[in-house]
């Protein structure tokens, strides 16, 4: 190879520069070809195992003395080697061969490396163990990484994930708090010896995945992470605190933080607002709920469509049926359909649907908050707004369209499910408000509508029975109750339904089991009375 031959005459720094470029773009064969000129055993060279090959390379220190001032040849070799290990390991990690990757990283830990490099290698091996289902070992690795260099915050974040996996909530929150504090403190650029060097691994390693991984996460995302976990794990007060903190960050005018592309990705911003509203609701700060929701409504109002037609497939798992007949008209029709439901159009529609859902959810929370505040009139107004908004969505059943099986189609289906659910909930809440105002007939109608749009709702069923009972239509109630009992046995438990719901529509567990029991008792009694 001509390049290799000519490289005999080029000194080491030039080669390292070349390698740096190639490590960044990961051109393994090129790197090997560079070092072919150096004395090493032929077996490694022929095998193509770059790591072994690199390990065996020995540099003589008799090179130009001027160059030694920058970096000694041995040191440079170590750096190059560690960089290659990282790049190579990342490649294997990305391909899912966790065991192999872990072995590579483990071998690398034996090298004398800079602290930063060590922490990176420990973190990566931790990730490998995490994926291999060895959380404790992973935690050990992360701990060692942090010991080596505390600025490696990715390790901290990953360990919080491991703690979550292990169900160790306290440890998880402690880690997250630590992370939050680490992020908030402005980074002190203390001049370590590493930074003064002209050649250091960060310069050689320009692997985008690595850069992204070891970048300092932004405060906003860490705070969100904390808030979300608090809400999920029921630490309502913490959640409220963190959410409000987060919203403050969003609205603060002087906040000029830039956050693009972080390890923890934020959900859509309106959802954060709604999650905040949910946490506030749980903390029974109803006025605050209305205020937060008002913000959402105000911001989105401009782009909420007056009506929306959206196509949803009949069945979830329907295969894509290619058109059999090749007649002109069907072709035309399919063309039309493709155009109509092209990906971008569908995406735009999804976004519009999202806007409707967010606004409706905001109205829903407002309405509910007013119910809690015993302002039934306001409550009914807001819930009506929510329902009216949800009713502007016209759902069309499309059959066998390819789009509906794609990713966007799935998103649409999820959104439509959510829409029905929200509709059901809204009807229930409005019904309750009517009940409280003594308008039982209207209430009953709302409960019935609720059951239509969201039959799985326990609340809906309970309140429907309650309404029937109060109206004196006990026979109807009993028959409905019987039907419900039968269906409930076949249907999976209620919790599963709640679990797959989005965070901002938390399971509203205000129905205590005692309520349910009293109702059950009532009906059982009536039945036993009626039977004889």
């Amino acid at each position, binding site marked *: 190879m001509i390049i290799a031959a000519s490289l005999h005459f080029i000194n080491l720094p030039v080669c390292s520069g070349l390698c740096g470029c190639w490590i960044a773009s990961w051109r393994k064969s090129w790197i090997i070809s560079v070092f072919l000129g150096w004395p090493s055993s032929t077996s490694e060279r022929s095998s193509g195992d770059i790591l072994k090959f690199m390990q065996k390379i020995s540099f003589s220190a008799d090179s130009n003395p001027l160059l030694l001032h920058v970096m000694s040849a041995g040191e440079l070799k170590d750096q190059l080697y560690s960089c290659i290990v990282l790049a190579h390991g990342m490649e294997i990690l990305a391909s899912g061969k966790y065991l192999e990757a872990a072995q590579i990283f483990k071998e690398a830990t034996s090298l004398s490396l800079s602290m930063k490099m060590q922490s990176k290698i420990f973190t990566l091996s931790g990730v490998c163990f995490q994926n291999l289902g060895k959380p404790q070992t992973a935690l050990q690795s992360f701990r060692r990484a942090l010991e080596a260099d505390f600025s490696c915050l990715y390790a901290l974040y990953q360990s919080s994930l491991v703690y979550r996996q292990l169900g160790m909530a306290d440890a998880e929150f402690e880690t997250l708090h630590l992370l939050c504090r680490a992020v908030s403190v402005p980074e002190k650029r203390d001049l370590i010896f590493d930074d003064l060097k002209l050649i250091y691994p960060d310069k050689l390693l320009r692997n985008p995945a690595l850069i992204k991984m070891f970048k300092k996460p932004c405060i906003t995302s860490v705070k969100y992470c904390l808030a979300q976990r608090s809400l999920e794990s029921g630490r309502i007060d913490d959640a409220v605190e963190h959410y409000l903190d987060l919203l403050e960050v969003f609205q603060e005018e002087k906040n000029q933080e830039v956050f*693009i*592309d972080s390890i923890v990705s934020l959900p*859509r*911003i309106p959802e954060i607002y709604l999650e905040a509203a949910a946490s506030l609701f749980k903390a029974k700060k109803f006025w605050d709920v209305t205020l937060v929701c008002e913000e959402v409504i105000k911001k989105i109002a*401009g782009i909420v*469509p*007056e*009506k929306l037609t959206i196509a949803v497939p009949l069945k979830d798992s329907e295969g894509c049926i290619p058109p059999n007949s090749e007649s002109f008209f069907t072709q035309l029709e399919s063309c039309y359909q493709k155009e109509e439901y092209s990906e971008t159009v569908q995406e735009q529609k999804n*976004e519009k649907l999202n806007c409707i859902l967010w606004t409706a959810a905001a109205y829903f929370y407002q309405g509910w908050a007013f119910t809690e505040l015993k302002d039934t009139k306001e409550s009914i107004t807001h819930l009506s707004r929510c329902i009216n908004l949800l009713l502007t969505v016209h759902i069309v059943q499309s059959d066998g369209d390819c789009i509906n099986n794609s990713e966007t189609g799935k998103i649409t289906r999820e959104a439509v499910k959510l829409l029905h659910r929200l509709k059901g909930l809204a009807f229930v809440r409005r019904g309750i408000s009517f009940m409280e105002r003594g308008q039982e007939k209207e209430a009953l109608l709302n409960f019935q509508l609720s059951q239509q749009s969201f039959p799985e709702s326990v609340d809906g069923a309970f309140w429907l029975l309650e309404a029937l009972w109060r109206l004196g239509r006990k026979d109807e109630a009993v028959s409905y109750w019987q039907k419900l009992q039968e269906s409930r046995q076949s249907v999976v438990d209620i919790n599963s339904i709640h679990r797959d719901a989005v965070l901002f529509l938390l399971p509203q567990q205000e129905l205590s089991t005692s309520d349910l029991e009293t109702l059950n008792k009532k009906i059982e009694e009536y039945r036993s009375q009626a039977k004889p």
Partner: protein
Amino acid sequence: MANRRCIVDYLAKFHCPLYEDVFASVHVIQNESFIYLCNGTEFVAVYSKCEKQIVVVYQFPGKACLMEEDSKQHCLFVLCENYGLFSVILHLKDRFSSESQQRGASIDTCRVSLDACIIKDPTIHSFILVQNLIITVGQKCRVRTLSIFGNPQLGQVSYEKIEELDVPILENVIISSDKKQVRMPPYLCCVYPHGQKQMPSRGIRNFSLEPQLFTLLFGVDATMLDSPVILCGFLDGQVYYLPLRQSVTCTDDLRSRNSVFRMLYHLGQPVRFIGAMLPNDKGNSTLLLVGHYGKIIQIKTEYHCEGSLPNFIERNILGPVISVHSSATHIYYSTPSDLMTLPLSNTSEESTSSVSDAPAIENNLVLFFQSPHSLNVCKIIAVSCPTEMQTGEVELVAFSLAGKLMKIRISRGPSKTNSSRLSTAQTGQRIKDLLSGIGNVSDRASLLKSKIQSKNDSLKRLNRVFNICCMLQSCQERKEENCKETVHCHVVAKWNHLLLQDSLNLTCALENSSSYILEEGWMLCVEVKSQSYSMSSDSKHFSRLYTFPIAKLLPAQTMEVSVPLSSLNDLFLYALVHCTLIYNFQGILGYQENGRQQDQNSFVSSMTFKNCICLPLKTQTVDILDYLRLANLATLPRELVIKPVTDLVDVFLNTSSHVIHHCSEQIPLKRETRFSLEDGNCVASIKVSTELLKCGLTSTTSGVTFAASTVAWLLSSNSEADLLSLPSHPVVTATTPTGKSIKIHAKELLMNLKDSGGGAQPAVQMQFLWGLLHQSEVLAKKVQEVRDHLCLGLKISSEATEKLLSAYQQLRSMELVIL
């Protein structure tokens, strides 16, 4: 529209380097009190509006190609080619306070050192200031990088890189380094949702959009986060947007919603400008994209029942657009030829403000009237952001290719016709205006047409004149007889009997035998030069000039003019007649009446001949023989009439030489012609050898004596000789114009051979000549002797007088011998 007037004030003059794509690095920024100019060199000048002069000139290490002002921190950020971004703190406020009185203070020149370079990166092509961040876009090979720099500690100058993102390049777009392509830096600007209460005043490329449009374009998240959105317009026409606050998992796929950069629009031509227009109470309602080749995209909100949509309205103006800026309602842009303004009024606002929905046709009409207008300022290469004055005027600062920094003030015009709907009266007026405009234009067009026509005619005329000149010249170079196709002139003296009075006229006949037309502008000029033979002391020449304008002389036509000869007071021995064709160049430029008037006066003073071409046609001598009045002439055979020759003596000499060469053995005969002119019986005789005469008179007919034919030949050019047939008699009596009678007598006589025997030999002739020479030498000696005598101061003795008299007599008696 038409009443948009602008006033241009020249502020300063700069050097403007003339290299290709100089437009890319010439920028003008203005604020309330200062104007900053980078003129494509390493200098950045600061002009004070109060002091009306340049106050500071900064010299950078490299070519300054982009600048922005941070008015809060009084900083000027300048991007230097091959170096990076420099920050210069302006100390202008101090200067203004302390030295405001000192007008005409010297210009400070500051050399900016490399220490002022805050971001060292030679790959940076463009930058923008956003809040306390600096965002740069650079390109290295095929990788575009957007970097975000921030200063963590406020007040410090140091900037740290916060983020570095690769701007994707679509695979199918080739960014060629072709030199023919336009080179310009990527256009960066920053958009805020209007929700931001205080608009950051940092830099001019920050603007707000109304929240609805903002949300539609950049998403709900950006609105809810009040995120500034960076817009990057690239050379390949792609306009990307990047919300500064977003959290997505990064993918390189542009089409996915998860990409950090998302494409707003593909303009298809280099992006020249991104701006916002048409503000309402919520913010700017239109986002504007302008391409280099004149494509303008207005992005507005379109109301739709299924949700509002951003509407991309495309229109095209005549490009290439060199520099653009937008005000609230107008775009100001410069093309290589002119500075233009384009009103873009809010049509959607109109439709909502009017009672009913405005019909689409009307909107189209409004669009139609929204056409660009010229401001009649040419060669502008940089335009600043326009500022609206309180008076409603718009003020622009511009920089021209000639290096002039100028302030352009544009008056808005009395009526806001652009934004309001046109009433019928206004429409009528506008139509009238347009029609009168069309009329003016057509008048001008016809005028220009006629001018072109006349110029063409002139050229044709000039061509013909030139042809004629060439023809005449070539004919003169060759011998006259060779060219038949030319313009000839014949001159004949004629007696005219008019009103019982005889007058002698000279008739010139101009014969056009060429194939060209002699047109207006040509003149025949006849000059008669005569010599008086009166005995007055100074016998002077006098001449008369006659010009005759030629109206039109077609081929094969003849024009005849007469010139009076007898009107000359004195009689003359002979007259020289010069015939000349003159062309006056005024004839080329459409010969008019005043030109004709001019030549009446001007030819007396021959000054005007300088503007003319003179082509001599003919020179002829008219002598007494030509105008003798012949009485009782006998008939002469017609054949004898020889073709008119110009000079008899010439002929003589010509023929004689011929004779001498070829027939010198002939015995010379003397032929004597005597005629008396004066009443005192004057006799003159000429002796001509018969041989010569014989040669000359080739067509001697039998029956006529030699002497008679000689007389006939002598009188051949006389016009009367044609009328009367000459007699076969050798004696002709005639009357001179003065009424004296004259007799021409020809007789043949044998020459007395004086000294030699062999008379016919040339030796004899030589001897004879020698004799004559000797005689004249003796005479000369005698005269000299007398003269010497006189010189000695002696009195003239009677002896001397006698001697002189005898010498005179001998001289008189000497015969004119023509050999």
